[in-house]
């Protein structure tokens, strides 16, 4: 399968701090990659880099064949990122948030309804302003937004935080379904060790660098550490 993410010695600075100190990794299409590592290791930074939201200080990288030094703008529309913060407009209702992004993504009403129903956001919650949602409801909304975007790569940063058991199952089933359809999924999470699919990979991030390749290499490729 084709490689969708390829980083070589990527160094990223946040302010004066080297948050990533030379990351080398390559990820194939359709993989599920679990990113583990202690707090402050650089997981979120890595995901933001892959989304094209951070400039690389040095190193090279391509995501979906877009160069991370020069083509970040072109890359971004193909990425779905769920960060620590949900990025909803607090003054708009759930439905209004959905509608705005749906028209930005070019999704139709039907997709909105389906995504909202899927995450249990239909009915009363539709017209609640997102600032009044509970933590879990807010994350459900963020996930519903990811669904209607249909990006080629999902970058999930602690996707389970704040979700109840039911929510976690929904997320898992989404992920598995998306991967079936050829989406690549990167998950940074402290909460889970596997999401119920055998050929997932685990990367360990520590001190801004990938330290240990998993013992169970998924597809015999040379995913150099």
């Amino acid at each position, binding site marked *: 399968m084709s490689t969708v993410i390829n980083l070589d010695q990527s160094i990223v600075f946040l*302010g004066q701090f*080297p948050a990533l100190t030379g990351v080398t990794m390559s990820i194939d299409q359709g993989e599920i990659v679990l990113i583990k590592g202690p707090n*402050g290791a650089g997981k979120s930074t890595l995901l933001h880099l892959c989304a094209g939201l951070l400039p690389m200080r040095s190193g090279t990288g391509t995501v979906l064949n877009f160069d991370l030094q020069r083509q970040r703008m072109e890359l971004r529309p193909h990425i779905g990122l769920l960060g620590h913060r949900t990025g909803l407009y607090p003054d708009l209702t759930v439905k209004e948030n959905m509608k705005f992004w749906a028209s930005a993504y070019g999704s139709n009403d039907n997709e909105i309804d389906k995504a909202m129903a899927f995450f249990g956001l239909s009915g009363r919650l539709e017209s609640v302003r997102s600032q009044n949602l509970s933590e879990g409801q807010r994350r459900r909304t963020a996930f519903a937004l990811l669904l209607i975007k249909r990006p080629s790569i999902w970058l999930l940063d602690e996707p389970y935080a704040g979700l109840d058991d039911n929510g976690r199952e929904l997320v898992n089933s989404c992920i598995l379904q998306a991967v079936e359809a050829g989406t690549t999924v990167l998950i940074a999470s402290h909460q889970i060790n596997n999401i119920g699919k055998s050929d997932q990979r685990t990367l360990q991030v*520590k001190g801004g*660098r990938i*330290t240990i390749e998993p013992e169970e290499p998924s597809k015999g490729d040379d995913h150099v550490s």
Partner: protein
Amino acid sequence: MQSTEKQEFTTSRGTRFMGISLLIGIPTLLIFAFLLSPADDNMDDAVRLIYVHVPMAIFAYVAIITTGIGSVFFLWKKSRWWDTVAHASAEIGLILCGLVLITGSIWGRPTWNTWWEWGDVRLVTTLVLFLMILGYLALRQVPANPEMRAKRASVVGIIAAVNIPIINRSVEWWENNTLHQKSSLTDGKLENLTLFTLFLGFIVVGISYLWLMTHRFRVGWMTTEIETAGIAELIEERLNEGNSTVVNSQPQQKDGTK
């Protein structure tokens, strides 16, 4: 530029030449300005300030336009060279612009009988330009990601540069209301010696600009160089931090890296 990598100082043959020309040029200018050129009919000895005032005004414009050009090329080529040029030129522009304000005020005291006149367009627009450069440099001082800062500063630099024509033409537009001199150069009423001294002034200020530019550019370049050199150290520290976290949290694990 290759030379800067080897050298301790920001001097080179070119700048030394310029420095020497300035050593000769500045006294010559002073001699012409104060001794040789005649006093003006209605402005008296105060006219002598024109020999620095006007060239500095023009080169302040040149400096800011250089900043604008550097900014455009930086956004286009993403090359650090242009960014350093833009930054260096803006700093010198600020100095020149400040000197124009000061010499102008000093000049205004005897000729217009006031240090500052709010109604005067030239004065106010020059002040506005000064403030624009101040804003640009304030932005450059912000502690943030250098790349991000450079991009934002470039936009501000471009905006400042496109304002130069507006500020410069303002005298024509605001005509009804200015104490300030209108183009006396183009009137052709100046005496020969005066004209020559003014010309000399242009050359001296011009060389000063270039000389300051080269030095300031090299300082800027070296600063980034030093910052780059520090990266390896920072990264080393960060990696160790990763290891020590490992030691704290999982004492049984021996090998963190590799």
